C-alpha cells in the first residue's frame, strides 16, 4: 500500500527577491513499512521535502497524498491533527518541551491523542527503556545531556506508532552505540513484522 504519493511536486522560495526553486517536478512513492533514506548535498531540498511531507510547509505546485489525505487541500487545524496522528518528528536540534520531564515529553503526544493514563505511562516508560533512558525518566530536558535529549526525541517520535516517522540527520549527534541502537530501533519499528511503519531517512 502506498503511504506517500507525490506527483509533480514544485517548491520555490522567494528570499530577498531571489526566487529559489528548491524542488522541481518531483515524483515519489513510498510504500507502507518501507525504510527510505534521502541523500543529497546540502541545499538540495531534503529538508524542504520532509517539511512538505510533514505538513509543515506548503508546496508551490503538485500533489502530496499522505494515506488518503491530500495535504494541499487541508486546513491548518486538519494538518495539525494529521501530524499528530500520522507523523513522528525528530528535529536537528533537541526540541523537547522544557517544563516537562523526559517521560512527560514522551507521553505528551499520547495525551493529545487521548490515550488513557495507564497506557500512556506504560508505553512511554517502555519506549524510554528501549532508548536506554529508564533511569532518567523523571529528569527535565536541561538535566539531560544532548544525546540523552535526542534519544527522548526519538522515543517521542515513535511512541505514538505513527504511520511515518520523519527524522533529519539526528544520528550525527549520537554516540556510536546509541546510533546503532536508535537505527535498529527505528528499523524495528519500520519492519513489516512489527507494526508496518514507514521511515523516510
Amino acid at each position, binding site marked *: 500500500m502506498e503511504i506517500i504519493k507525490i506527483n509533480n511536486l514544485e517548491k520555490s522560495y522567494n528570499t530577498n527577491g531571489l526566487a529559489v526553486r528548491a524542488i522541481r517536478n518531483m515524483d515519489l512513492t513510498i510504500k507502507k513499512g518501507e525504510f527510505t533514506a534521502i541523500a543529497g548535498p546540502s541545499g538540495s531540498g531534503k529538508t524542504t521535502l520532509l517539511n512538505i511531507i510533514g505538513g509543515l510547509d506548503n508546496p508551490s505546485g503538485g500533489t502530496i497524498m499522505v494515506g488518503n489525505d491530500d495535504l494541499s487541500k487541508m486546513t491548518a487545524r486538519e494538518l*495539525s491533527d494529521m501530524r499528530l496522528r500520522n507523523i513522528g518528528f525528530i528535529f536537528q536540534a533537541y526540541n523537547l518541551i522544557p517544563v516537562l520531564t523526559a517521560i512527560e515529553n514522551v507521553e505528551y503526544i499520547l495525551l*493529545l491523542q487521548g490515550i488513557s493514563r495507564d497506557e500512556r505511562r506504560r508505553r512511554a516508560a517502555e519506549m524510554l527503556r528501549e532508548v536506554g533512558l529508564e533511569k532518567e525518566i523523571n529528569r527535565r530536558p536541561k538535566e539531560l545531556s544532548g544525546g540523552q535529549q535526542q534519544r527522548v526525541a526519538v522515543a517521542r517520535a515513535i511512541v505514538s506508532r505513527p504511520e511515518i516517522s520523519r527524522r533529519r540527520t539526528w544520528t550525527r549527534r549520537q554516540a556510536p552505540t546509541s546510533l546503532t541502537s536508535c537505527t535498529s530501533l527505528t528499523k524495528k519499528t519500520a519492519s513489516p513484522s512489527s507494526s508496518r511503519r514507514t521511515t523516510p531517512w
Partner: protein
Amino acid sequence: MKFKPSYIEPVLAWRNVWKNKRRTVLTLLTVTVGCAMLITFHALNKGGHDQMIEDAIEANTGHIQIHARGYWDARSIDYSFKPDERITSALKKIPGVYAFSERVIAGALLSNKNATAGAMIQAVDPLIEKKVSTLHGKVLKGGRYLNADDSTSIVLGETLAKNLDVKTGDTVTMLSQGFDGSIAAENLQVVGIFRSGNPEYDQGLALTPISLAKESFTMMDHISSIVIRLEDSDYTDRVREHLLKTVGKNELEIMGWRELMPELVQFIDMDDMGGYIFDIILFMVIAFGILNNIQMSVFERIREFGVMLAIGTRPGQVTTMVILEAMMIAFLGTVLGIILGSASSYYFILNPLNYSEYAKEFEIWGISTVIWPAKLTYMNIILTSVLTFVLSVGFSVFPARHAAKLKPIEAIRHL
C-alpha cells in the same frame, strides 16, 4: 479523531508560570501592589467622603429639612410655616427617624459697643437640638451650651465673637425684624462660644433658645424649619418619599442632604473624578505588567511553540495555555492584592488619616472633617478585583494569539 478533555494545558501553563520565577514574582508584585493600592485608595476615599457627609449632617444640617416653600432660596423669616400634627405624628411613626428639631432662623444684627456684625440667629429647643446637631459639643472651655431654662442667652461662633470682641459673660444686642414686620430687639448674654471648624458657622451662626425667639420675632407658632436626623444616611430617600406622601409638596419643601449641601456633594464628585483618573492609570500599569510578562515569555519560547505545533498540538491549545498562564498570574496577584489591600484598609480604619495640619485648606471648601477613617466595602473589593483580573487576562490575548499563529518551521528555526 476525538480528543478527550485534557488537563495538559493547565499543567503546562502552571509549570511555565514558575519556569522564570523572578519575572513571575515581579509581575505578581505589580498586580498585587496595584490591586491593593486600588482597594486602599477606594477605601480611604469612601471613608473620607462618608465621614465628611456624616460630619456635615451631624454638625447642623441634618439628613432632611422641612421648610415653607421658597424658604431655602430666600432664607428669610417671611417664609415660615406652622408645623401641623400630620408632620410631627408622621415623623414619630416613620422608622429610621432618630430625632427631629424645630428651628426658628432669622437674619439679625448683633452689636457690642462699637462693633456690629450680621449673623444668622438659629433658635432651638436646647434639649431636643442636642439629638440633631453636634454643635453643643463644640463649645469652647469657659462657656456652656444653651440650657432648657435659659431665656436670654446666646451662644456665638468663635469668629463672630472675635469680630464683636465679646467673651463669655458679655452682653450683645440683637436687632432684627419679626415675622409680623415688627422690630425685634433683645439684649442677650453670651453663655458660650463654639468652634465648629466650618467657617460659615463660626463666622455667622448664633444660637438662642426657641422660647425667646418665638416671642421676640412674634412667630405666632410658626417656625422656619424642621431638621430631621436619621439613624443612617441611606434612609434619606425613603424617609423623604414617605414625608412627601404624607404632607404633600404644595406648601412645604422637603429637602434631603444632597440638596441642602450642594457644595459638599460637588466637592466629593470632583474628588471622585480625580480618583477615577488615578484608577485608570493604575489599571493600565497592571495590564501592561501582565502584557509585558506574557509577551516576553512568548518571545522566549518561539522554538518551543514551534515544536509543540509541529508534533500536533492544535493552535487553540497553545492559545489556551498562554491565556491560562496570564489567568494564573492574574488570579494569584488579585487574591494577594485583596489580602494586602484589605489589610492596609483595615489599618486605616483603626488609624484614620489625620489631616489637621491642612484644616485651613479644607475650610475653604467648608469642610471641617480632618480625621479620615477608611471604609472597606464588598463593592470595592469585588469591582477592583474583577476589573484587575479581566483587564490582565484581556491583555494576554494578543501574545497568546501570536503564539498560536506561529508557523512551525519558521518557529523551530527561530533563535
